[in-house]
């Protein structure tokens, strides 16, 4: 039986290759971050650029921890999707 659970679908998506990620320069990485939806961008930016822990992000953004977790999770998924499209040479 085929399952359509979003988590399973997500895990079946092709992942961006580690080699591609390491080949990026800082400007490309920042550009990819800037393309993440504005709702997910603040926690993901603080996570990677300011190295903030998720509880510190929740305190800084005055958001519940659960909201930050969920936005981080979705933001990372979106960031990987953006990088994957760039890797495949598609226009984002």
């Amino acid at each position, binding site marked *: 039986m085929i399952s359509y659970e979003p988590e399973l679908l997500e895990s079946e998506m092709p992942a*961006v290759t580690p080699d591609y990620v390491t080949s990026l320069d800082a400007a490309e990485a920042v550009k990819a971050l800037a393309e993440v939806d504005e*709702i997910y961008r603040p926690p993901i930016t603080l996570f990677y650029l300011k190295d903030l822990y998720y509880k510190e992000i929740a305190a*800084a953004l005055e958001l519940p921890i659960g909201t930050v977790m969920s936005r981080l999770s979705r933001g990372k998924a979106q960031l990987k999707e953006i990088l994957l499209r760039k890797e495949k040479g598609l226009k984002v």
Partner: protein
Amino acid sequence: MDKKEAREILRAYRADLFEIDDPDITEALRMAAEDPQLQALLKEEQAFDRAFSDILKDIEPPDGLMERILSGVRAIAESQIRDAKIVWWRHPGTWAAAACLTALLVVAAVFKQNKSLPPPVGELDLLDSFARAAAGIRPPFGLWISETTKSMT
């Protein structure tokens, strides 16, 4: 903690920023140790985070980054509140509900008016025989006899 929560926590977890006394992280890591799917997810997320943060480690975040992010977050929150206030009366459902309510009130008023006037005597019999004829039911035997004899005379 269920598997979905554990996934979210593991995605938000970075070994280099880990607080040892965080019970949520500890629990999610314990689940990952016992579940191969979560283990694979953790491994992939850690590899990605390490690679991506390595690229950014030499960048000095611009001055005022935090302030800009916070003002952006506030602007989003305010626009969400504003939209929530405006949208309710623009929603087609609101108009549909209002139309249904009006129609219901009209029907109720008409029904109440008709109910106050009893149908003339004989009309009920006529309605009854029409309904029975439509349903293919014969009238009660006595009534059928009287109708039949009436039609014969």
